[in-house]
């Protein structure tokens, strides 16, 4: 109960909300514009974060370069997913996409000597024997520097989480501007057309497959960026961080925001973050009857109920356009 009223906790939640917001923005490019239902999005986060961690810990690569490589590998993962499965019709793509992230997770789980396996990043073999396997050696001083700048304004309240929240939200802001612009380009108009029909754009000279592939890769790059922040936020990685449920959290944010436009996404992300963080504190009666693992399920049920309620009241999402939903 104590943490409930501590501002520090909510700053942590804010940072997490931002990371989920970035993650969800990747889905937004794919679904909100191209109508592509990707249920394996968390795979891109797993690829980028693990690539970065392995490059830094096992090969001593500079953290910033390793992060870029991580995002690039996420993009490659997206390209692989798209090239192998986008030719399937929509429903099949969605099903296969789940397999994509699960395969990534299983490979990570079972490659002990390389990824640390079930033990996570703490078990990634360090380049120099005996070194502590961490990938945050470059990041922590940087975030400390940001924290010191924040201390000028916030005094003692400034902490690592606050610096993290700031950086994450600046990143999300920049990405929202870029993606917002891309979504006003004719490129996005073609993708919107492909959401309804393949034949018309094809008959007008558009390579539908290529447009979809680009959308999936772009979304994967954004998911990859979220993965780097995810790794930094927790300072260690484990295969369990990348369960399919995480993809669905991204979807929740997207559904809340009203998919076609990006502007609702940050607010939906905060809403989700606080719902998710807030329900953690349902330790009072009647929830106190249950033990903590049971409460974890109750929490997800409550999030679900709130979402159902919202969808009934505002099926177009918090910011979607209702007219778009009723066209036949």
């Amino acid at each position: 109960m104590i943490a409930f009223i501590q501002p520090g906790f909510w700053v942590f939640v804010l940072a997490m909300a931002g990371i989920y917001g970035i993650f969800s923005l990747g889905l937004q490019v794919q679904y909100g514009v191209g109508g592509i239902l990707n249920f394996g999005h968390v795979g891109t986060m797993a690829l980028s974060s693990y690539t970065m961690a392995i490059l830094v810990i096992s090969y001593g690569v500079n953290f910033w370069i390793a992060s870029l490589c991580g995002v690039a590998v996420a993009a490659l993962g997206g390209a692989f997913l798209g090239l192998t499965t986008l030719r399937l019709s929509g429903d099949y793509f969605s099903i296969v996409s789940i397999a994509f992230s699960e395969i990534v997770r299983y490979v990570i789980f079972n490659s002990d000597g390389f990824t640390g396996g079930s033990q996570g990043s703490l078990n990634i073999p360090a380049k120099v024997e005996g070194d502590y396997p961490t990938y945050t050696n470059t990041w922590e001083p940087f975030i400390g520097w940001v924290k010191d700048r924040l201390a000028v304004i916030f005094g003692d309240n400034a902490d690592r989480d606050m610096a993290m929240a700031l950086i994450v939200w600046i990143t999300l802001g920049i990405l929202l501007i870029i993606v917002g612009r891309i979504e006003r380009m004719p490129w996005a108009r073609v993708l919107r057309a492909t959401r309804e029909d393949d034949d018309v754009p094809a008959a007008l000279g558009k390579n539908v497959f290529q447009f979809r592939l680009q959308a999936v890769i772009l979304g994967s790059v954004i998911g990859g960026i979220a993965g780097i922040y995810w790794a930094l936020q927790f300072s260690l990685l484990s295969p369990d961080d990348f369960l399919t449920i995480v993809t669905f959290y991204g979807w929740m944010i997207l559904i809340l925001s009203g998919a076609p436009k990006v502007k609702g996404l940050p607010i939906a992300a905060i809403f989700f973050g606080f719902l998710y963080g807030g329900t953690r504190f349902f330790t009072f009666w009647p929830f106190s009857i249950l033990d903590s693992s049971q409460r974890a399920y109750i929490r997800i049920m409550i999030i679900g109920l709130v979402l159902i309620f919202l969808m009934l009241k505002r099926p177009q999402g918090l910011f979607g356009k209702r007219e778009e939903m009723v066209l036949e």
Partner: protein
Amino acid sequence: MSNNLILDVRDIKVHFGGVKAVDGATMSVERGSVTSVIGPNGAGKTTLFNLISGAIASDSGTVAFNGEEIQNLHPHQIAHRGMIRTFQGAKVIKRLSVVENVMLGGQKNPGERLSGFFNPRARSRYESESRERAMSLLKQVGIDRFAEDYAGILSGGQRKLLDLARSLMAQPTMLLLDEPFAGVNPTLVEKLLEVLNSLRQAHQLSFLLVEHDLETVMNISDRVVVMAEGKVIADGLPNSIYDNELVIDAYLGTRKKKS
């Protein structure tokens, strides 16, 4: 003669299960001409269009467009070569505005490449020119007042007009129109025919169209191809078709026999 053919279809075939939808059709279209395909429902006219435009793959046979074999190309590649088709059902993108639907027809749009993100100037120049041209096409087909509405609100006939405007936006050298005038009111049909005719004269545009209204067909066609049960059963000048016994049996039926 043969290099004056813009489209040359040889013995093309496709079947769906047991249905031989197109069963060895051979026909051609001369540059700058209007060729009409007629035939009873289920004769294979739309399927022939789908084969020519690459929307479905053929079992055998060849399709040459401007002398190049295109039967193995994808629809978008065929469109790039200047052949644009419309759809029998008049497909519109419901969640795009009417004018955006038309703008979709524009070719070589720099803003349709992701790299165009880094060239906002070229992108917006193309975009404003494209919007202007789209608006004038909408005016020509008489639905410009709906330009900013979702295409999903258009009536069936209006959707046909939109489909036509969108195809013209692509500045094709050949248009495949599948029943473009079905459900369009007669005065507008007159007007559209004028538009198409002027395009044909100005740009040597070639047409292949499917049409059930025989009067229109006889009026506008240079050649008429008659299909029945997947085969071309007659091919000739409009008048000769009107007198052809096979055609009378297969399509014109009693109406012609009475007179």
